């Protein structure tokens, strides 16, 4: 997901009886679906885990601008260009909403940015894959946004108020993202031979990386258990991955495309598909920085940040001059 493998700092889930009164009151509110707000008491672990999770989610939106931004200047029609630009702009907006939510927890956006650039904080593995053809832009919208929505819709009910409100706004705005991707895929899949090949190739390359977005199985993870008790994680990784596959396979069939998995088969008994796991070694390699685009992505963000310093400083200096002049005039 956009936040993968977020380590919870909790030391295993405590029962209500084991908790001090403050923590107990906090947990009872969470259990009763009452939102926690910035100034409310919260366990330090909850705060730290949320900063990591929301920060990683925000970084993913920002880095996620790059693979799609890669095609804005090459989009094939004026309308496609505008749609793609509006969509990538939305990602910037979503990053902004999420940074704002994290900022309520006592960390600044600049601090989070520095942590991203120094490699201390991560972003989703998916954005380390390149977009090679126009069909990849379709596949990213269809599969990557599709996978993201799986996770984001339940997160609207997360226990932390600012995070929940950011997710509500994001989900509302994202509703067109997946559709525009599928719309591109439909055009390609029903187009010329070359366009069909391009569409199939995009599905081949993005299928497993999309499945990786949900993270490895966390059925027995202590971190997940704690995050779920805190309601900052709503579903298990496997649950969401299954849901994604069940939803996506018929969409691929409609396009006349083949999911690159020989083992894929409908399982009547469980009412869902059996499917192959992605290559988790590849996933860990990509997380560690060995993905095809890791270096480019971080370099692009570093350049934007470093080259932008004089602009940020210049406008700060001007604002200070105006303030001083105003005070002097009064």
């Amino acid at each position, binding site marked *: 997901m956009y936040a993968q493998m977020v380590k919870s700092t909790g030391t295993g889930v405590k029962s209500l009886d084991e908790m001090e009164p403050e923590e107990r009151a906090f947990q009872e509110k969470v259990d009763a679906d009452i939102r926690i707000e910035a*100034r409310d008491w919260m366990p330090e672990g909850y705060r730290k885990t949320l900063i990591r999770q929301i920060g990683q989610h925000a970084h993913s939106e920002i880095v996620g601008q790059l693979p799609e931004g890669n095609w804005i200047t090459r989009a094939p029609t004026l309308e496609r260009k505008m749609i793609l630009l509006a969509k990538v*702009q939305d990602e910037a907006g979503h990053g902004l909403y999420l940074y704002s939510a994290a900022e309520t927890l006592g960390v600044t*956006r600049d601090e989070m940015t520095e942590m991203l650039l120094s490699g201390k904080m991560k972003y989703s593995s998916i954005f380390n894959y390149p977009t090679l053809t126009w069909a990849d832009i379709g596949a990213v919208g269809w599969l990557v946004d599709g996978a993201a929505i799986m996770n984001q819709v339940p997160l609207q009910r997360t226990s932390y108020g600012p995070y929940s409100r*950011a997710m509500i*706004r994001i989900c509302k705005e994202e509703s067109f993202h997946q559709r525009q991707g599928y719309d591109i895929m439909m055009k390609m899949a029903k187009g010329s031979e070359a366009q069909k090949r391009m569409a199939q190739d995009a599905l081949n390359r993005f299928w497993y990386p999309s499945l990786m977005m949900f993270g490895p199985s966390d059925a027995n993870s202590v971190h997940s258990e704690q995050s779920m008790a805190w309601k900052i994680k709503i579903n298990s990784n496997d649950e969401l991955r299954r849901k994604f596959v069940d939803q996506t396979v018929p969409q691929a069939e409609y396009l006349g495309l083949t999911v690159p998995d020989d083992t894929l088969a409908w399982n009547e008994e469980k009412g869902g598909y059996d499917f192959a796991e992605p290559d988790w070694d590849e996933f860990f390699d990509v997380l560690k920085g060995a993905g095809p685009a890791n270096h480019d992505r971080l370099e692009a963000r570093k350049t934007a940040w470093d080259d932008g310093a004089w602009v940020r*400083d210049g406008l700060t200096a001007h604002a200070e001059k105006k303030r001083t002049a105003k005070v002097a005039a009064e």
Partner: protein
Amino acid sequence: MSKEWPLYEIFIRGQHGLSHRHVGSLHAPDAETAIKNARDVYTRRNEGVSIWVVEAAAITATAPGDKGPIFEPSESKIYRHPTFYDIPDEIGHM
């Protein structure tokens, strides 16, 4: 690291006749730019007719610990609500 732009809280009037509502926050070097940024960030989908911005640091808020003393006393003042009074049906709507 250079100095970060201050954080502004953004309030938007969605339609004529409604009050401004908090929609989120953003950074800007000054209040005038914060308004422009709010226009670009928070009204991309035609969401507003008026924008207020206020530096986050300028907001004074109730402390969560005061919740009891501040808000609970009003719970007992049931006579402030119209349903407290029994008016005979034959009087009609009041």
